[in-house]
Structures are given as C-alpha cells and as structure tokens.
C-alpha cells in the first residue's frame, strides 16, 4: 500500500487481519525509513513479544515475562488500512498466528470443537 497514513493513531497497536479476514496479531511496532530526510515511510510491521521492548518500561517488563518470537511483515504486504491493517496473504505465510496454532491442539480434542 502507498499513500499517507497516520502512524500513531492509524496503524500502531491496530489489529492485523490476513487475506481470509482472520485476526492474526496487533501491530506491536513499526520500522521506519527516511526519518532523517524528513520523509518517513513505514518499511516493516513488527509483531510479537520481543518487539514490546521498544514500547516503554511496561513494554520491556511485558517482553521479559512473555514468550514468543518476533515476526516482520514488509509494508509491501499490506493490502489496505481501514480500522485494521489488512494483509495480502494468509497468516501462516508470514509466520503469524502461531500461538493460535499451538492452542488449537489443546481444544481440538473436545467434542464439538469444530462446530
């Protein structure tokens, strides 16, 4: 996606949705380019507990407690930004939604879990 976006209120901490409309994480942080030149643009969306380290003292604390890997999603993979950030491919293609994949094994055996 190109064009101007509001970094603080429009993207950061917003919901990520994959190509099938599934929720697959929040935008935990952003990697910017060209800040020094005065023309900042988003390069990468960062997702996952290790990324919280960049989100202040409470973020560092949370990152120390939580487990999980960080995931980088290139901005070129963003299809559209509305009230969420919509990606072009299924979550698995980016390595997103791994927590749900692990948790799935814990509930899948219960009768009626797929209903």
């Amino acid at each position, binding site marked *: 996606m190109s064009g101007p976006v509001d970094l603080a209120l429009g993207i950061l901490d917003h*919901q990520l949705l994959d190509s099938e409309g599934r929720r697959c*994480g929040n935008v935990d942080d952003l990697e910017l380019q060209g800040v020094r030149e005065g023309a900042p643009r988003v390069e990468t969306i960062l997702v996952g507990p290790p990324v919280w380290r960049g989100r*202040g003292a*409470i973020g560092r604390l*949370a990152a120390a407690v939580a487990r999980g890997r960080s995931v980088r999603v290139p901005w070129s993979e963003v299809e559209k930004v509305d009230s969420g950030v919509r990606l072009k491919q299924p979550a698995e293609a980016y390595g997103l939604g791994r927590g*749900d994949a692990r948790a799935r094994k814990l*509930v899948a055996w219960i009768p009626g879990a797929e209903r």
Partner: protein
Amino acid sequence: MKKVFEIALGILAAIGGFVDIGDIVFNTAAGALFQYQLLWAVVIGVGAIVTYSEMCGRVAVVSQRAAFDAVRERLGFGVGLLALVAGQLVNLLTLAAEIGGIALALQLVAGLPFRVLLVIAVLALGLAIWAMPFEWIERVFGYIGLALLVFAVGAIKLHPDWGGVASGFVPHADTGDLAVYLFFVVGLLGAATVPYEVYFYSSGAIEERWTPKDLGINKANAIIGYSLGGLLSFALMITAAELFYPREISPETLGSVALGANVPLGELGLLLGLIGILFAVSGAAIDTAFAGAYNLAQFFGWEWGKYRTAVEAPRFTLAWMVMLVLGFLIVVTGVDPIQVTEYSVIFSVVALPATYVPILLVANDRAYMGNYANGRIANVFGIFYLAVILVVAVAAIPLMIISNMGQG
C-alpha cells in the same frame, strides 16, 4: 415487523442481563439502610451505562473494533496493558462473585454443601458456553432472568409510600452517617456500570454481526433494555425498603433477598424470584467470563468470538475456560461471596475510566467513525457521565475505608 421483533428480543435480553449479583446486593442493602433515599443513584448509573453501551456498540458496528481494541489503540501499549491488568482483575473478582452467587441461590433450593454447588455451577456454566451459540446464551439467560420481574410485582403489592419513593429520585441525604450513604452511592453506581457490561456489549455487537443498518437496534437495546433493567433495581430497593428498613434488618444473605418475593407473593413468588436470581446471575457470570476473554484477545490481537468455532479461535476459547477456573478458585477458598461482590463493585468503579476515556475518544474520531461519530447529545452525556465516574473513582477507595465497607 421482523425488525420490531428483533428489537423486542434484544431488549428483553438486556433487561434480564442487566441485573447481576452486584445489583442484587447493593440495591437490597441500600433499601434496607436508607429506604428510598438512594433511588437517584440508580438513575445516574443507568444513564452512564446506557450512554457508554450505545457508544461502544456504535463504534463496534461501524469499525468492527471492540472495547479493548480501542483501549490499546488510544492508550498505547504500556498504559493499555495497565488498563488490561486492572480490567482483568476486576473481571475475575466479579466472576468469582457471580459464581458464588449462583451457588448461594442453588443452596436455597438444594441442600448440598456450598463447595459442591460451586463445582456444579462452574461445570454448568462451562457446558452452557460450550454447547450454545452466542444468541442462545444471551437470550436463554436474559429471558429466564426476566422472572426477576416478580420483584416489581412484589414491590407494588407491598404498597410502598409512593410519595417517599418519588422523593428518592431527588438527591438528598437524610442520615447521620454520610460516609456510609456516600459509600452506597459509589456501590450503586458501580453495580450499574460494572466494566464487563461495556466489554461484553461492544464485542456482542460484532458477535451478532450488526451492520450500520442495525444502529437503531443498538440504540433501542441500550436505552430501553438498560432503563427497564434499572426498573428491576428500583424494585429490589423498594422491596427492601418495605421489608427490612422498618425492622432494621440488614439482609446479609441471598435468602433474605428472595424473601422480598416470598412475603408479598407466597411460594410462587419465592420460586420465580429464585429462578430469576439464578439465571440473571448465571448470565452475568457468562458475560464476565467472555469479557475477560474478549479483552485478552483484543489486546494481543488474537482471533476471538463465539461466532468462530473453538478451533478457529482457540486462545479465546482457552481464555474463557481459564477465567471460569480462576473465578472458581477464588470463591472456593471459602471467602464470603457477598463480600467479594462488594469489593468487586468498588474496585470496578476505580477501573472504569480506563475504559470510558478511550471509547469516548474513538467515538469522536471522524477518521474512524465517519458520519457515525458522536453527535452533540452523545458528547454532552458522555462527558457528564465521565466526570461523574471520575469523581466516584477517586472517592471510592477512601470512602470504602472511612465507612468500613458501609458498616459505619
């Protein structure tokens, strides 16, 4: 015609869904201690919950983002996480109180040990959530909870002094112990506005797949449903004012609440009253367990919703299960459920601004809400009730200490 029917169904569910263990405890105790004097506090509490439910329902419908999405987006990660922790602690305490309330109500029917009834309560809740679709859960518990209307009939049959009732809607304090009076103001406001209601309501709008065409239903549900729910609160308070105030009894058990339906209406009244309490409190327990799961999922970006299967939203599913287990573990320790209720209500008032502020901000954001952003009326009410809640939130803990939890 289908629309009218749908609105009616939603409203009925909202009436039954409004009253929970906190309302039952605080309204009954307030009537016993201060007769009709505190009816006005219920009006303010209902006004606040109507305003903020309508608002967060509208935000959810227009943006498909629920309460804790808004919290994190507006407060950021750090402060948002603090709000999450506070909200979850309150949710847990509330859930423990509701589970305890279910067991207390069951105890009046079946003579089993309290801890056995707790196990039964939690298993039944888990099974109901697992087996029923969202709409069923909301409606089954909402409708059967309507049996609480027996208290409204009972209140009328007790022939209250209607002039006195009317004067209760004008704030005045005719009491020797102002701290206890104010503690009950906080409690009644808190019981009417428990945070899980807003968390649940906003996510529920998405669960029910509302679209902007349903904004009328959203408004009607919030205004009529919660107002009529407030009517049940009035009924509980007036009943207590008739039965307990003259005899200087403080109703410390759920059994004495049920007496409010028994004295004017006999066995049938008692039965309906107990069924109403049982289903209303069970519905509230489910709402609270869901609220906890919604909050976690929204803050961390997980897939969520009862409209997804357990396999599609597994962390959300595990989250409500864990909520139920933790709520059970709190109350199985042997703490008094009525006391847990009182603490949960008072602490919920303290945590409330962290939810209301982001909702108000998002509802005013035209980039987010377009033409559905707050109009002047929603903002006047929104800011007024936020100011009230802020004052009450600051005063809550000091009042709790000064009034010795309302014991004077």
